[in-house]
């Protein structure tokens, strides 16, 4: 008996070749990497360890572990996940589960099916990676990973005919590239559902950065050290000079002697109507980084904003109803006449001039003394600013620690502070003489990125200033401007030597690095603006611009379904065209004939010709011999002996249809 290596391979696939396995393991590792920083470290370690041992087993021609090892190991891993996360749903636990599954599956890749499962879990992991990382480089990484996974799939799919790695890679590249137009089409047309459908439950315990609802001395200093981007702004028209860019956040009107905090928020939806709209207006787009807080930054005083589920508070700050756990883009229009409207009933006046009894006595005495020297409130206030300006007060990131009477200590002993200290002191001084005052926190200034023509506002631009009630309006006064005018004019980097801060801030020293950082930020911003922010509104907008007004989700789904069906039909038609010469009537009849003989005796091996097969059937079923020989002979003549005329094909069709052999030979005939 001669050996038939190729046929053996087809019937019982042997272990994959080393190359195949390397691609498969590579695909698994590439799919694991995006999740590695987010899941508990033991999970990626386990994936790497199992991948390495799988390769070791293959290269040393060892047997794969038996079920006795695999099943307990799997159960152990599942228990580990349960113990780590106390659940098996959610992004972290879910991806951990997938990671463990794909690693365990690697240990039992015996056949094509197992390898295909590994690849499909890889695809799913890569898809889930978008929940982790949506930076502009992420699609490129994922494209590479998908390429590797597809290569591995192609290598395992060609069972009877192994495919070289280079060729598989080339094919996979073509497949991935061919998918790109479809991807873009789906990106544009796939129905976007507004609301929480897209947002998965957030990973808990995420650190919050940004402005908080209260301010103690030194709080803003922490922010000033952070180079993280708070938000980006693009102005529709002229870009105002940095000096007027006061981005209002939470308004802190409650003072306890040491720290400022917010009053319980009251939402006044009708407030917008009270704004005098005759002032200069400015419109801008803000893309806010997620910070798990409620504040939507805006210039004073916002009269229009596009963010949903948000409101204007009584202090004219914009607040979202839910914490900002995703990047949010909105357009806002502000009236920039420099003051914030409001009204001041007596009760409110009492609250806004309240100072706790016995707090900061020296400050209050000094304020009363100073007020008595000036005729007007305004004169008094500018005298305070003059004091800050002319006396030895210092603007520093590292002020001394302040005790309970923080303002007293700041004004009369340490004399050095950050914007928060000055704002706090100024507001206390104003309140001490009965002028309603409050601290406003937010951001001031920002960095213009000329490449994308937008402003980057970082956490280090966090600022605090004061609003005082003068002449029936809230008026902004920035005491920091008196101490360190360069901070307001040029930003934080100029005001304070931050060489010691290190990190990206230090990098920003060199012009080239600065250019690089700005370019990268511009790419990021364009990505956020054009890709990530493509939500239901942008979709409707785009579609109506190309002539599909008011597309409803239902219409989109319908259109997509029809489009998909057409695509599939087209692919099917192409396939048909390609196989047309083989799928003619004669081929169909031959298949039918083979099906019938397959039931009666055995199926035709793919490599058997008609005559050979007929002979084999005849040997097995002597009762059918004549009939089978005649039919297969007729087929061979029609198929191979020159052009078949249709009458003979028709006769052959009748014969085939009439041929219905019994599944088992009749009892009296020799089997």
């Amino acid at each position, binding site marked *: 008996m*001669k050996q038939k290596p190729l046929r053996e391979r087809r019937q019982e696939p042997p272990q994959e070749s080393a190359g195949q396995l390397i691609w498969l393991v590579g695909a698994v590792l590439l799919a694991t990497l995006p999740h590695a920083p987010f899941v508990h470290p033991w999970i990626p370690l386990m994936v790497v360890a199992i991948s390495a041992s799988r390769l070791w087993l293959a290269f040393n021609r060892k047997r794969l572990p038996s079920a006795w090892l695999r099943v307990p190991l799997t159960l152990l891993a599942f228990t580990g996940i349960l113990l780590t996360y106390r659940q098996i749903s959610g992004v972290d636990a879910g991806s951990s589960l997938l990671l463990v599954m794909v690693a365990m599956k690697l240990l039992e890749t015996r056949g094509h099916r197992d390898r295909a499962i590994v690849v499909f879990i890889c695809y799913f992991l890569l898809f889930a990676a978008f929940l982790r990382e949506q930076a502009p480089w992420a699609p490129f990484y994922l494209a590479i990973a998908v390429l590797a996974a597809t290569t591995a799939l192609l290598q395992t799919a060609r069972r009877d005919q192994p495919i070289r790695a280079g060729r598989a890679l080339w094919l996979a590249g073509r497949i991935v590239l061919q998918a790109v137009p479809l991807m873009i089409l789906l990106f544009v047309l796939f129905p976007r559902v507004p609301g929480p459908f897209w947002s998965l439950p957030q990973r808990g315990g995420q650190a919050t950065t940004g402005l908080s609802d209260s301010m103690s001395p030194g709080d803003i200093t922490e922010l000033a050290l952070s180079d993280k981007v708070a938000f980006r702004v693009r102005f529709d028209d002229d870009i105002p000079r940095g000096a007027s860019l006061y981005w209002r956040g939470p308004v802190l009107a409650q003072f306890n002697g040491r720290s400022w905090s917010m009053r319980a928020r009251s939402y006044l939806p009708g407030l917008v109507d009270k704004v005098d709209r005759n002032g200069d207006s400015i419109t801008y787009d803000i893309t806010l980084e997620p910070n798990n807080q409620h504040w939507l930054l805006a210039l004073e005083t916002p009269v229009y904003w596009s963010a949903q589920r948000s409101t204007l508070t009584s202090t004219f700050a914009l607040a979202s109803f839910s914490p900002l756990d995703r990047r949010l883009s909105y357009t806002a229009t502000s009236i920039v006449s420099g003051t914030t409207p409001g009204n001041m009933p007596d009760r409110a006046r009492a609250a806004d001039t309240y100072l706790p009894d016995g707090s900061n006595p020296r400050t209050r005495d000094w304020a009363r003394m100073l007020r008595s020297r000036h005729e007007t409130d305004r004169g008094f206030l500018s005298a305070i600013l003059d004091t800050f300006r002319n006396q030895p007060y210092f603007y520093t990131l590292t002020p001394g620690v302040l005790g309970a009477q923080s303002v007293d200590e700041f004004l009369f002993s340490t004399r050095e502070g950050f914007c928060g200290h000055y704002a706090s002191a100024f507001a206390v001084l104003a309140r001490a003489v009965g002028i309603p005052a409050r601290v406003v926190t937010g951001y001031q200034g920002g960095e213009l990125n000329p490449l994308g023509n937008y402003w980057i506002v970082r956490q280090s631009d966090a600022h605090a200033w004061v609003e005082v009630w003068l002449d029936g309006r809230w008026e902004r006064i920035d005491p920091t401007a008196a101490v360190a005018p360069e901070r307001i004019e040029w930003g934080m980097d100029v005001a304070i030597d931050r060489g010691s801060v290190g990190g990206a801030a230090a990098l920003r020293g060199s012009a080239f690095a600065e250019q690089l950082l700005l370019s990268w930020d511009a790419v990021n911003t364009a990505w956020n603006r054009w890709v990530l922010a493509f939500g239901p509104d942008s979709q409707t907008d785009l579609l109506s611009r190309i002539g599909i007004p008011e597309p409803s989700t239902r219409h989109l789904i319908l259109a997509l379904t029809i489009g998909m069906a057409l695509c599939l039909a087209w692919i099917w038609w192409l396939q048909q065209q390609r196989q047309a*010469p083989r799928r003619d009537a004669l081929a169909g009849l031959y298949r039918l004939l083979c099906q019938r003989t397959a039931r009666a005796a055995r199926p035709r091996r793919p490599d058997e010709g008609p005559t050979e097969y007929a002979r084999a059937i005849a040997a097995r079923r002597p009762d059918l011999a004549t009939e089978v020989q005649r039919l297969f002979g007729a087929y061979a003549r029609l198929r191979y*002996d020159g052009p078949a005329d249709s009458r003979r094909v028709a006769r052959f069709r009748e014969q085939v249809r009439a041929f219905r052999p019994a599944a088992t030979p009749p009892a009296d005939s020799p089997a």
Partner: protein
Amino acid sequence: MTDSVARIADHDRLAKARGKAERVVSRVGEIVLGKDREIRLAVSCLLAQGHLLIEDLPGVGKTLLARSLAAALGLDYRRIQFTSDLLPADVIGVSVFDQTANAFHFHPGPLFAQLVLADEVNRATPKAQSALLEAMEEHQVTADGKTYDLPEPFFVIATQNPTYQVGTFPLPESQLDRFLMRIGLGYPAPELERKLLRGDNRRGLLADVEPVISVEDIAELQAAARSVHLADALLDYAQALINQTRDAPELEFGLSPRAAVDLLSVARCWAMLEGHRGVRPEDLKAVFGPVVGHRIKGRDQYAGRDAETLAEAILDSVPVP
């Protein structure tokens, strides 16, 4: 209408040709017992105007097959015994100075025959081998700057000892490619061997063999073979087979286009002998191993495997449409 008339005419011609070819096969079969398949392959090879390489152990009947073919076909037969000291001139012929004519006169060598048996071709040095192989390709020889045409038809049946035997110069791949087909004969079946042991000297029978067809008949048979139909489905199959030799990881290299053309022309002759009007997959499969075997080479762990096995594996891995 004319089409079907032409087809019927073709049919007749094919049937007649088949009858004649069958007579050759059965006549040779009377002398070389139990080797029906090999005889048919050899006849197909000659009808396809190719040269035949028989590779087997000494004494299994290689020479007998060649001589009986020559006798049955009525061809003028010469034999060249290749040895390690054979010179090209011993094959081609030499120019001898004729004193009376005062000129060189060419004495044709044993190559000038219609059927040449090159016995144990791999015992000669490459130089002598290439003299033969060049003649096979060109159907002419060149000696002292003059070109001499070889007789038509011109067939070479070369025999070769298995290359592992001592004192052999294996033919390089490029020269093996010049042989249309390589066959082995193998030991006879036991009952036939018994007949052989009991019976007459087979060589003695050769003297009695009369040609069953003429040289003109051979040309006619060759033309008839060329009229055997090649259906699209068959060409698809043939191409799939050829591509498989190029893609299969077991093989060092795939078949050349020349090999592909050879494959189909032999398959046509085989189909004609089988009485088929068109080449069927089975015809192709029957000649695939002999035509392809000496032109492929196993790679890596398949290197030691014999060519027939590899060819078989290729056949097994390609579905018949």
